[in-house]
């Protein structure tokens, strides 16, 4: 039932983002992409954090569900990261004139994309199932420290063209809609996650039955 409420929330956020908000200072109407780009990037990092959590649990408990959830979190994270990269590139083209110029934030989202792809490449390359789950869980944990390094530390130590995320300086209305968008997209992830995990779990059990 709550997904109906989520639907209304997301509709309201989208309408508000386009119709109600004023143009962002210095960026004009182009700035409205932040209502979509920022939530996608945030959920991409959240998905990775979930994957790391479930990977750690898998290493401790060796339960199939934990690996299913870790893999699902990575799947959804990959999707959100691709969208965040694309929206970021569009924004870059409109404001800085080039789709890609290795700005530290662009590099960090690109690296997150590479981590996800490497995770799936590893899963493909290991034929034995138990070993696959263990090795991919270990890789998620190894790759994890690089994300806060890239997302938070390096952009602050080097010069970046990326708009500074000084949320506190924003206009009240912009801040509210942005937070609402972030909450909405997080809700979207929370809604998708159990559904996709269940599908994945059932798929694996079906394969097991096939092999027997």
């Amino acid at each position, binding site marked *: 039932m709550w997904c109906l409420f989520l639907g209304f929330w997301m509709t309201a956020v989208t309408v508000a983002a386009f119709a109600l908000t004023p143009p962002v200072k210095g960026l004009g109407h182009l700035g409205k992409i932040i209502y979509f780009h920022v939530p996608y990037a945030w959920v991409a990092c959240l998905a990775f954090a979930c994957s790391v959590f479930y990977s750690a649990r898998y*290493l401790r408990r060796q339960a199939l569900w934990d690996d299913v959830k870790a893999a699902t979190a990575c799947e959804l994270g990959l999707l959100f990261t691709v969208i965040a990269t694309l929206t970021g590139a569009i924004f870059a083209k409109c404001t800085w004139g080039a789709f890609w110029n290795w700005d530290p934030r662009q*590099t960090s989202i690109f*690296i*997150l994309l*590479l*981590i996800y*792809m*490497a995770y799936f*490449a*590893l899963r493909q*390359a*290991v*034929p*034995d199932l*138990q*070993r696959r789950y*263990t*090795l991919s*869980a*270990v*890789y998620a*944990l*190894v*790759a994890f*420290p*690089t994300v806060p*390094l*890239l997302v938070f*530390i*390096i952009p602050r*130590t*080097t010069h970046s063209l990326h708009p500074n995320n000084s949320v506190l300086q924003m206009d009240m209305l912009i801040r509210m809609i942005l937070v609402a968008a972030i909450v909405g997209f997080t809700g979207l992830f929370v809604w998708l996650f159990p559904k996709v995990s269940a599908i994945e779990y059932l798929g694996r059990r079906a394969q097991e039955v096939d092999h027997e």
Partner: protein
Amino acid sequence: MNISRWIGQTLLMLQKDIKEEFRSKVALSTLLLFALCTLFLVSFALGGCPLAPHVAAALLWVILFFASLSAIAHSFVREEEKGTALGLRLSASAEVVFWGKWLFNLLLEFLLLLLVVPLFLILFDLRVVYWSDFTVVLLLGTLGLTTACTLLAAIVAKASQQGTLLTILAFPVLLPLLMTVTRATARVIAGSAPLQGNTLLFLGIYPCMMSGLALLLFPSVWES
């Protein structure tokens, strides 16, 4: 297990790997030949034109990164291929295996540095302004590279397509290190700035972080 016994076993591991390497010299030759070929190719292509410091730094780290990947993968893959992995699991604890392999890879890396860096400076006619900073950046960068790659090589040893898979896995994990170290090397060669405090901090923290991860995670990988 007390410390001295542990250290003794680790050094024994190192000795075993060195002896095995001397028999076939696969890792060493891959490492050195790749590095030398790349260096000479670029030097020839440039034909005496000077190389800008940031380009030179990038080139140096590209050579070190790719040469290391090919050689470090070999240390674990060889165990799996020759069938000695099971014997190793029975006779030594996971920590001893990891640190023994790590020491061996570090030795290979130092040999690589000893050969490549002087040639690099000579062939491209570079005059390093801050020598001590340059050495520190190279050593710490190599330490971080070795630690991360040894852990990832253990993961990759049990998969198929080890060569390409290690590159795919290692690149995102090593990128923060490579970005920092390339920039620092460029600055130190050009003389625009000596090694900065937070760069040194990062270069010191990265190997420690990777070692910590290895201590926690290697046993799961080794015993899977």
